[in-house]
Structures are given as C-alpha cells and as structure tokens.
C-alpha cells in the first residue's frame, strides 16, 4: 500500500492522496461529492457518461475525475455553474434518448438516473424525446433486458467481463443506435456462455436489466464488484 504523498487542492481544500488515486477517489475519500453514473467501484473506469467532469486549473478542458490521476499541486473544482450546466444537460439528454418512464419502471425509487434528475433539478427535457422503440429480450427464465431503458453505461458489460470473467455482453452499432448484445446478438435464452449469475442486473443503474417479478430495490447490489475485487486481493 502506497502512502498519501500527493498533495492537491479540491474545492479550495487541501487534501492528500495516493499517487495511484484518481481525482474521484481523492474527492470521495475526503467526503467531497462528485456525481457519477457509468463509474462503479471495482470495475474499470472509462469516463463514458461525463457526469464526473471537473475543472482542473491550467487546463481548458474538463476532465473526467474517474479516469484522471491526481498529481502534486493540482487544483480541482468539482462544483461550478459551468459544470452544473453540463451535468444537467447530460442528464437531460439521457432522459430524452430512450423511453424513461419512471412511473411504470421496475427501477422506480432505486434508479440512479432518476436520483440524479432529482438532485440536479432536471425537471423536464428541453429537447423532444426520441421515442425509438427497441425490442425487449424476455427470453431468459430469470432476467429481462429492456433496451428502452438502457443508458449504455456498460457497467453490465464490464462486470460480466471483469468480475464474472465471461464477457457475454457487449455493444453493437454506434451512437444513438448502440445497444447491448448477448453473445453474438442472440436472444438471452440461446446464450451458451451466460452463467445466469445476475451480476449485470445487480449493477444496472437503471431498469434496463432486471430480475423478473422483482423490484430493482431487492436485487440491486452496487457494492458487489468492489466486494469481489477486495476478496480476491486477499
């Protein structure tokens, strides 16, 4: 274990972090909130959702705190009108891209996107919703994959690959047409590689992958990857 030898300033507060830490980790360890969505402790961070962007002094670009390592004398701002504007925009676009209808969703009340909308006061979407319809895969005896609620955070893909070690899931197509695939784009029930472990549904931040007949609040286990990684390290 390395020592906290890096000194940086986050929101005007002097904090110490390990050289291997990211800005997000350093902030979290010091009780400073940065919103995240695609990031999940225990999985490889890839900076996809951009919600965790922060301002770093001397750098005109916004940096994703989940992938940017700390460095000495770095000055970070996690909360500003500019950052909030972008974060709200991201939440709005995510809400508009697929058909997020909280009232009839299995994740209602335990959805991370819903929570973020509440927290950031995204009370409507200024862009019209997309209303594109995706087929729902209900072939598996226990799980459902509903692309209409997917935000393409890829947590399911990463947990399947990195924690379960199977890599059943992946993405097909690009941009707004992207969607999660099972094996080589087959119905879930036809998958030979899927072990039916349910880790994908445990980490889904929304209601896109869920256990049949169960509310997400019962099956969600956000801390699962971190727990497994920690155990394996011992």
């Amino acid at each position, binding site marked *: 274990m390395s020592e906290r030898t890096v000194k940086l300033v986050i929101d005007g507060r002097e904090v110490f972090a390990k050289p291997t830490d990211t800005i997000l980790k350093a902030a979290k360890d010091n009780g400073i909130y940065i919103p995240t969505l695609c990031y999940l402790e225990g999985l490889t961070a890839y900076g996809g959702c951009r919600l965790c962007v922060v301002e770093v002094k001397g750098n005109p670009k916004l940096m994703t705190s989940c992938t940017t390592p700390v460095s000495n004398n770095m000055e970070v701002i996690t909360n500003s009108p500019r950052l909030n504007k972008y974060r709200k925009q991201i939440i709005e676009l995510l*809400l508009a891209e697929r058909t997020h209808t*909280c009232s009839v969703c299995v994740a209602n009340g335990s959805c991370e996107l819903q929570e973020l*909308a*509440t927290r950031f006061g995204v009370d409507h979407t200024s862009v019209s*919703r997309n209303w594109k319809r995706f087929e729902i895969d209900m072939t598996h005896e226990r799980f459902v994959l509903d692309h*209409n609620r997917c935000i393409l955070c890829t947590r399911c893909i990463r947990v399947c690959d990195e924690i379960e070690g199977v890599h059943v899931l992946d993405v097909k197509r690009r941009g707004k047409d992207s969607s999660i695939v099972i094996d080589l784009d087959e119905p879930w029930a036809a998958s030979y590689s899927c072990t039916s472990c349910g880790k994908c549904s445990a980490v889904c931040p929304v209601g896109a992958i869920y256990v049949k007949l169960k509310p997400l609040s019962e099956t969600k286990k956000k801390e699962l990857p971190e727990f497994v990684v920690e155990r394996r390290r011992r």
Partner: protein
Amino acid sequence: MAKVKVATVWLSGCSGCHMSFLDQDEKIIELAEKIELVYSPIVDIKDFPENVDITFVEGAVANEEQLHQLKTIRERTKLLIAFGDCAVTGNVVALRNMFQDSVKEVLERAYVENVDHSKQYPTQVPKLLENAHPLHEVVKVDFYLPGCPPSAELINYVLNEILDGRKPSLEGRFKFG
C-alpha cells in the same frame, strides 16, 4: 385583498395528480382563503375563464380538442404549471409514440383486438394526434412540477411559494415517477 384565481385542468392523464391535489387535506382550507378556484374538473364551470393567475395542467396533449384547449388556456393564464409526469414528459400516455403508426395500433388494440363484440373505432370523440405530447411541446410552460403524482406536500409547497411571490425550487424535492 383580491383572491388569486387558480384553475386546474385534466387532459390525458389518470386524474391522479388531481387526487394528490385534494390530498392536501386540511391545508386546502388555508388555501381557500387565498385562492379562488375558477375552473377545475371539480368545479361546475363549462368554459375556461379569462384572466386566470395560475393554471395547473395535468395530463399529456393527446387529441385535437386538448390541443385547442391548451392553447386557449395559455392565452388566458399568467402562470401555467405542467402538473405531473404526463404533462411534463408524456409519461404513460406517450408510450404509444414508440409505435410506427401509433394511432391505428392503439385503436386496433383497444377497440378491436381486446373486445369480444361491437368491434369498432369510436366516432363521437376528438381525433387522436399522431403523437402524444408533453405540454411544453405545444405551448410555453412556466413551471414544471413532475411526479406520478407529485406529492400533496410538494403541490402545497409550490402553490404557497408562488402565492407568496417566490419561485419554488424543486432541486432535491421532486421525483419523476
């Protein structure tokens, strides 16, 4: 002091938001001292009056009559509130927007496929629009009050803030669904 003129309107929704409005219970008595309910599904007035101060509009805009109605409401209202998820996002009402030929599919499903006799489309009712819309796609909305339904506490908070001349802040207070 003259009372503030408040109206509530029920478009394509389930009336759940109105139920939640009534759920303010005894606080409605306090409100009654400050507001006059000039138009509502629970008030027997046929035409939407002129010079309304605040209008709560529940439901999405799903047919031609509602489209016309909402435009009239907008002209006659100072502050228009999108009241509940259907008015704010389209919610369940707008789920049909995902289908290619949504009007035909919806009517077919409801009036032909799922009925045992007298299979026919309704004729004496307003025509459905191609898509169901949240209010702000049709008119300017001044305030969004999401929730399915918004809680009675939230409705009471919003209304009282507005009556006291403040702009309500929903950050951390509301919830879609």
